[in-house]
């Protein structure tokens, strides 16, 4: 009981609220992406053992890479469910990550541009990715897994808000 309370308070949750989550379809997109990366990385790391026959120990490398990839793939649904965003009066909050949690608050007046990008897989399931750019490169807020209509609506909303709150750099 106390242990639970301790872990609950240890987790970073600076702004409790109704986070808007991304579409569950994005799990599929992310899964396929992770699968492809995992296979390429595993095959790539097995090349030394395969081509040069340096010894049995070199097979440990692809095994390790494969295991890490599998863990990443297994965690994909949870990771996607952890992505969320929240529109407040003056800023947009973004969160992602379970192991490595990240919260970002971007004031509307600081948005320099809003990008919508769509990869081939995302397009196939009707999803889009929204990217917010500020004058700081470190902001790095990308909201994946929005339906195209949602993404466009959000973009127009954000651009309109940014226009009313416009300030210098």
């Amino acid at each position, binding site marked *: 009981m106390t242990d639970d309370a301790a872990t609950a308070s240890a987790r970073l949750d600076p702004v409790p609220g109704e986070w808007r989550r991304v579409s569950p379809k994005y799990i599929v997109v992310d899964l396929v992406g992770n699968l492809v990366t995992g296979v390429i990385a595993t095959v790539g790391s097995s090349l030394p053992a395969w081509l040069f026959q340096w010894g049995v120990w070199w097979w440990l490398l692809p095994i390790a890479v494969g295991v890490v990839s599998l863990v990443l793939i297994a965690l994909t649904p949870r990771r996607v469910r952890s992505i969320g965003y929240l529109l407040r009066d003056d800023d947009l909050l973004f969160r992602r990550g379970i192991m490595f949690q990240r919260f970002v608050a*971007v004031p509307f007046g600081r948005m320099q541009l809003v990008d919508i990008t769509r990869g081939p897989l995302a397009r196939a399931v009707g999803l889009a990715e929204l990217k917010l750019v500020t004058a*700081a490169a470190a902001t790095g807020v990308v909201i994946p897994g929005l339906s195209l209509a949602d993404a466009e609506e959000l973009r127009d909303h954000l651009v309109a808000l940014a226009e009313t709150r416009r300030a210098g750099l």
Partner: protein
Amino acid sequence: MTELADGAWHRLHPATPLLKGGIALIAILGVIVANLRERLVEWFFPGVNCPPDVCEEDPISIILERYLLFALLGIVVVILVVIALFWLSWRMHTFRVTGEVVEVRSGVLFRSHRKSRLDRIQGINIARPLFARIFGAAKLEISAAGSDANVQLAYLSSANADGLRAEILARASGLRAREAADAVAAAEAAAAEGAAVGVSDAVRANLAEVARARLAEFTAPELDPNLAPPQSVVTMSPGRLIGSTVLSSGTIMFVVIVAGVLVAVSVGGAGFWAFFGIIPTVFGLGSYLVNRVLKSLRYSIAATADGVRVGFGLLSTTNETIPPGRIHAVEISQELLWRPFDWWTVKVNLASQSSTAGAAGQQSTTILPVGSRTEVLKVLELVLPSLVTDETRLQIEGGLAPARPDDGFTTSPRRGAALRWFSWRRNGFMLHADAVVLRRGAVWRSLTVVPTARTQSVAAHQGPLERMLRLAKVRLHTVAGPVTASIGALDAHDASALFRDAAAAGAVAIRSDRSHRWGSA
């Protein structure tokens, strides 16, 4: 009001091609002289004979003997073409300053037209390289955010450059009422300086007058005493600069390497030749030291009506004016060996990138290469006037000292020592009305100040190790620069509170921030 800012198109200083190509011209002359040394000696001292195998087989001799006319003709044509091209390029290079924008048109074959909004100005730099200074010319660079977004006016006459900058800044500040007063002041200044405005008039009037004006310009103090009240000026003594350079980590590394080589020679018998490896390094270090000191002689940083002015230089001078609200983050830090002397250096993040280097051969973002504690606090007061007030001065000063229980900083908990071995007591933050103050480091102490009105976004991070220790990290995102405002190993609750408060303060600051038109408030 200077005539250059009347909204009509103007040309640059007529000597611009010469000044821009000055170095190239000298280099070409040098190459010619080096190659024709023998022949020049023969021309000027006919008694000295040219070695026979040089003069007979030399292509120059053949040209001189057989194709003299063609050669002369060719040289004349080349010179004429070059002059015509330079003249054309000078003629096609025009600029104008209106109430809203500054525009530059340049290029002969490939025309370019750059327009920069005055309220987006991040700073104005006036550089006077030695060669240009002799001719009474100056380079004016108007910086805007982003890379390669600056507008450069090279060259203008020296006095015009100062006048134009004052005028541009006055317009950018949105101050209409002050313009009339400025015009009167500028006219008075021009009258006082005699032949300063309009060099061509002076040339016609009197050459001696020009020489006198030039000499006055050359010997004038780097910082015009009328520009800033003396109590707001911070200068840097050469002695401290030398001391700080000698005690910097680079020098210490050098001494360690030399000591290592000496030990290797005496103990391991590495051989005498090892010394020769050191000699170039010694020369390199020597020239670095001399350069560093020479470049930052006459350094001063002062508060003017239109922002902070940083100026320096003995022979080639540079000064930059950064309007209020253009500084995105400030960091006061210290080299390890500077601590007994209480020396600090001040770096800032700016949205623009200046093409000229800063004082002491540093980046132009190092606005104070070295200063005492009082000077550093004064500089902080200049760049963030709202932060350092009488009430907060003690608190800010506490940020440079070891931690005390009641110094206003929220520091890491005891368990933060797992991640910040030595500095967990000092590692902390303070939320001020206008800025977030981060205090970090025990061995390498630093104090970072981020004005909330300039923060781009705020982030909070937590990794698995941090979660086990109930810690978290907060980072304030600013434009790119030498200062990274992030603070780790905070208690998760404190980090959440800082994240919330910094985000809220940022939203409030954006609403009330008027610094892009700083004069209109």
